């Protein structure tokens, strides 16, 4: 299991990286954390001819606040996001979701941008970004553009990035007070790819009414998906367990689950129901302080 040969570049700026991408297009792969790419290369499933190592572009590594948003540089390590007091305070669901990715050594290397661009349908990060309505800022030869989750994630392992574009930043809204949240997942072993991952947000009003609910599911479709019918069911309601049960059932309806060795399509779909219910209960508990 040794990778095949490649040409190796270490740009120091985004512009240089984009220039290299323009030159080599789809012969080139960006090397960020490498925690998904290098195994693929070691198996020789992937044999990029050119590797553009962006780890030298240090100014893509940051977590900062702008208004009500967190801005996270694409090269920020997952472990830094997980441990960031700012993230834990302003957007705890993000820190929680990231903590499910692999193990510490994987998160030490793995980057936010790398994980999003890899667009694995089971990815915790893509699921939580979908739930949070995060925005991806990409830079290409003509300049930059910003994409929401639905524009960004196209299908299995595929984003709308052009061959010469690079993801540079993710913008994530912070959570207002009085928000219930949860990130729950089912996996064979702790840290394995999720069979189902569910991110939920409950924006509450005074009086215990749910103003808006968001439910994102990972692992049950080619991209992370939002359970819009279930969200609508909860919006404007006082959330009861009966409502949660119903929401789970609604959410499972939209799952286009595919079978693999670990989980049949039927199982996956039903687990979407179960974990949406569990996630909503946990989120509700949090906002009620009932933990």
């Amino acid at each position, binding site marked *: 299991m040794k*990778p095949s040969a*490649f040409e190796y570049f270490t740009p120091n700026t985004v512009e240089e990286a984009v220039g290299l991408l323009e030159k080599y297009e789809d012969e080139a792969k960006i090397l960020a954390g490498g925690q998904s790419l290098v195994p693929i290369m*070691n198996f020789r499933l992937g044999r990029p001819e050119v590797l553009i190592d962006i*780890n030298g572009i240090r100014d893509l590594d940051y977590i900062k606040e702008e208004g009500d948003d967190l801005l996270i540089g694409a090269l920020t390590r997952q472990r830094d996001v997980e441990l960031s007091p700012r993230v834990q305070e302003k957007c705890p669901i993000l820190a929680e979701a990231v903590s499910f990715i692999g*193990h510490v050594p*994987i998160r*030490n*290397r793995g980057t936010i941008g790398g994980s999003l661009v890899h667009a694995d349908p089971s990815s915790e990060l893509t699921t939580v970004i979908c739930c949070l309505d995060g925005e991806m800022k990409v830079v290409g030869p003509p300049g930059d553009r910003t994409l929401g989750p639905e524009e960004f994630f196209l299908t299995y392992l595929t984003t709308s990035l052009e061959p010469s574009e690079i993801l540079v930043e993710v913008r994530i809204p912070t959570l207002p007070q009085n928000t219930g949240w949860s990130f729950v997942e089912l996996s064979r072993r702790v*840290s394995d790819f999720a069979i189902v991952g569910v991110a939920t947000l409950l924006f509450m009003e005074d009086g215990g009414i749910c103003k808006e609910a968001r439910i994102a599911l990972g692992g049950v479709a080619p991209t992370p998906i939002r359970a819009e019918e279930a969200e609508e069911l909860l919006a404007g309601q006082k959330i009861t367990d009966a409502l949660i049960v119903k929401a789970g059932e609604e959410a499972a309806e939209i799952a286009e689950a595919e079978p693999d060795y670990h989980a049949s399509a039927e199982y996956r779909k039903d687990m979407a129901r179960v974990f949406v219910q569990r996630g909503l209960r946990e989120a509700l508990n949090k906002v009620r302080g009932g933990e």
Partner: protein
Amino acid sequence: MVGYRRIVVKVNGVQYEREVEPRRLLVDFLRDDLELIGTHVGCEHGICGACTVLFNGRTARSCLMFAVQADGAEVMTVESLAENGKLHPIQEAFREHHGLQCGFCTPGMLMTTYEFLNENPDPSEEEVRKAISGVLCRCTGYKQVIDSVMAAAAEMKGK
């Protein structure tokens, strides 16, 4: 050498300058080029954790990095733990509590524990369990590894 890159890397406090092919995995560089054979290769896809080293002070799978990426970096391997003929308290604890049998995953266990106890000097058993869950061991069933890490924490805290 065409296609080779010159790198300068500090491993266990010693600076090395070498020419490497870009595709050379960091673990192969450590084991074959620097002859630091304490780091082991168990799966080459990032799951087993036997090859775990500290890269700029943080654990990393040396099978998922290229040696060229270590240019200018500091790497710590299992060989760095014992000093002046004295085992590190983590190593002592693993010996005291039978935290190893065949010893093949042990470098990964030790380096993982080293980082973990730096970050969390007073862990619960559950935290220890989680921390070492990134290293696969086929011999011990982990129980005595967990005992070892708990004992190492107690010992290191006492100092």
